[in-house]
């Protein structure tokens, strides 16, 4: 069977799909717009809930992909246009190359919410207000600070840390009314990392609801509380900078029915996720419809979650709704199997 699959996006879902197709003996080509494979997971030193090494996971996936003769990788590659001709997909790259495929798997992932849109928290104005991906970088033992959390304003160790949940999620005003699903868990993971390294640190999480829904997530949340991470139920209304660079945070402790405020060395915003920014263009090329937020819609969420309304176009990972890393990988593996089945039928039908 001489069939080839184009996988758009080289994150964990794309890699998973390529490795899955490889096991079926099917050729694939991963088209990744950034210089490296691995997607956003390359920035995570530890994954929740089991504190697995994220970089090692990505390295293993990439290594497997590189060693397979059936997986081709295009990095720094952007698609100029894409169309379907005679049942095949023709992709024209901006580099001038052309890619021809019998099926397409979309694994474009998501975008991190731009915290500047929620101006009351002062991200981009106050140096000591950072986002969760930046906190992740601080907590990375191989990162620029060797795993130490420092105040960006003066490089002093940060002892008092506030983590604000639901930034850019569950917010109708900003057009993101949905729950981003993973922020509660990754923030709790980050809080644990801080507390484990600095037992005398003060980590306060401002949350609306704790949604630790996955296997092992709730246990992680309980462990965080055992370590002394404080959880205050209330949405922060405003961050302001004090003259010494401290960030003052104000909220209502809704369980105590009284206002709370505190000064922190660093405030981390647990930013939510937004649909991938290339989604609209890709959907237009392929004749697909997006949901009102910009996520791709599966043919049937229950029975054919990886297929779309266009034959030969498949979905995997966060492109169809936000998912934790484990789910993105298993999406990739499953979509690979679906595509293999699809191509086999196509082959038999033609033969």
């Amino acid at each position, binding site marked *: 069977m001489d069939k080839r699959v184009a996988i758009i996006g080289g994150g964990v879902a794309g890699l998973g799909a390529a490795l899955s197709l490889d096991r079926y003996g099917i050729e694939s080509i991963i088209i990744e717009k950034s210089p490296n494979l691995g997607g956003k997971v390359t920035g995570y030193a530890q994954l929740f809930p089991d504190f697995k090494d994220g970089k090692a996971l990505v390295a293993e996936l990439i290594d497997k992909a590189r060693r397979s003769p059936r997986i081709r990788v295009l990095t720094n590659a952007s698609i100029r246009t894409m169309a379907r001709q005679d049942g095949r997909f023709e992709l024209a790259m901006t580099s001038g190359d052309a890619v021809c495929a019998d099926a397409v798997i979309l694994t474009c992932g998501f975008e991190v919410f731009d915290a500047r849109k929620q101006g009351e928290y002062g991200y981009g104005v106050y140096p000591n207000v950072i986002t969760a991906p930046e906190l992740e970088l601080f907590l990375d033992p191989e990162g620029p600070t060797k795993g130490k959390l420092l105040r960006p304003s003066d490089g002093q160790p940060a002892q008092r840390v506030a983590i604000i949940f*639901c930034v850019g999620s569950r917010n109708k*005003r900003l057009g993101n*009314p949905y729950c981003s699903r993973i922020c509660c868990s990754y923030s709790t993971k980050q809080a644990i990392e801080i507390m484990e390294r600095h037992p005398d640190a003060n980590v306060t999480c401002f949350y609306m609801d704790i949604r630790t829904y996955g296997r092992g997530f709730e246990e992680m949340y309980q462990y965080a509380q055992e370590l002394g991470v404080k959880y205050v*139920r*209330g949405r922060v209304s405003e961050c302001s900078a004090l003259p010494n660079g401290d960030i003052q945070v*104000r909220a209502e402790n*809704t369980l105590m029915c*009284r*206002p709370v405020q505190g000064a922190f060395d660093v405030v981390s915003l647990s930013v939510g996720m937004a649909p991938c920014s290339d989604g609209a263009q890709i959907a237009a090329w392929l004749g697909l419809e997006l949901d009102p937020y910009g996520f791709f819609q599966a043919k049937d969420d229950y029975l054919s979650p990886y297929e779309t309304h266009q034959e030969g176009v498949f979905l995997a990972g966060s492109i169809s709704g936000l998912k934790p890393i484990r789910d993105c990988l298993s999406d990739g593996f499953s979509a690979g199997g679906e595509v293999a089945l699809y191509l086999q039928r196509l082959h038999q039908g033609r033969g």
Partner: protein
Amino acid sequence: MAKTGSGEKGQPDYGWRFQGKIVRLCEDRSVQMDESSHLMERALRQMSMEYFALDRCLQCGICTEGCPHTKLETNARFSPRSFIQKARLGLLDLSGEDLWLCTQCGQCKLICPYEIPFLDVMISLRSLVVEQGAGYVPASIKGVLSSLSSAGNPWKEDQSRRGEWHADRDRSGNTSGRQDAVMLFVGCLPSYDKRAQKIARAAAELLQRAGVAFDILGEAEVCCGESALRAGDQGTFERLKAINTRNLAKGGAKRIYTLSPHCYDVMKNRYDGLETGGCQVYPFVILLHELISKGALPVRNGVHKRVAFHDPCLFSKHHSIIAEPREVLQNIPGIELVEMEHSGEKSFCCGGGGGGVWRDTAKGERLAEIRLEEALKTGADILATACPYCLTMLEESARGEERYQDLKVMDLCELLREGVFS
């Protein structure tokens, strides 16, 4: 009856609507209630059918933190969040003062992540109390509502004296009745209140200096009804609105300028008859801004003062009028414009909105006091504003207090008048 719950930006509303049916979060209200709370609960159910408001609140508390009352150091704090929570459990106590603390400043509406129309919820609850007698109405509010209903102004003043501030003036430059005349909607405080009349006089002088022909309705003008509306008296509001709409149409005004942001808000948003009649409503500060940019109001004298501008909530939070009043002030040479801790969209309420100006509030519980402290911190000589309510609230709270004696509260018209006339 039930409106669709789909959001304004075409987004689906999840959670409280499911397959076209309204899902109640607490269908089983096994809370013991007396007769009056049953009446209230029925009305609340009806209300939340309309707004889907109570059920979609996430109880995150951002409104409470944003609410100006939270900054008051009193024990009985007002919390919009717990207000909604109690309302949806049928536990709201309408016999207390709580319902009347909201000044309708709109801060909660600005920051609410789920766009809960808290101001409308508040108005609906008040109308339940005012029109159906389901709870407590402060005597001061009762008095104002009855005066508005019977006399057309909050003090049962003689309507024929409404234009007096203007009548006793030198009419030699009288420009009313001209074809191009604009209509000045004066409002109750600037018409009757000795202090606020100075705003009206300054405004009239500025208009005459700029050569703008203007009319006032005089005794044909009644209260715009904003206080009645926000205090829940829909009936009185509708009557006042009908009278004003009819008389404004009779006057043939095409452009109406209001001295108070409160009149502007209600005439812009709720006087549906005006726009269909080809009438446009603007706040007076917009006219001043226009005249200054055209060069029609040359400022001769410097006012060498440090000035802090207090944004009326209805301008900054409800209508995004933030730059214009500041530009008017900056046009006066010598003025050093300073900003208080809360300014622009994040402005801090004076406590006068939503009927607050008519309520008696004890010292130490006034929002205006917090605002005055903020003004003191900037070292301002003058606290300027552009709203008769704000002016009254701030000035009343400053009166007799030694710490505020060097802080003068002025309306923007008065300040500009000082710059234009010697």
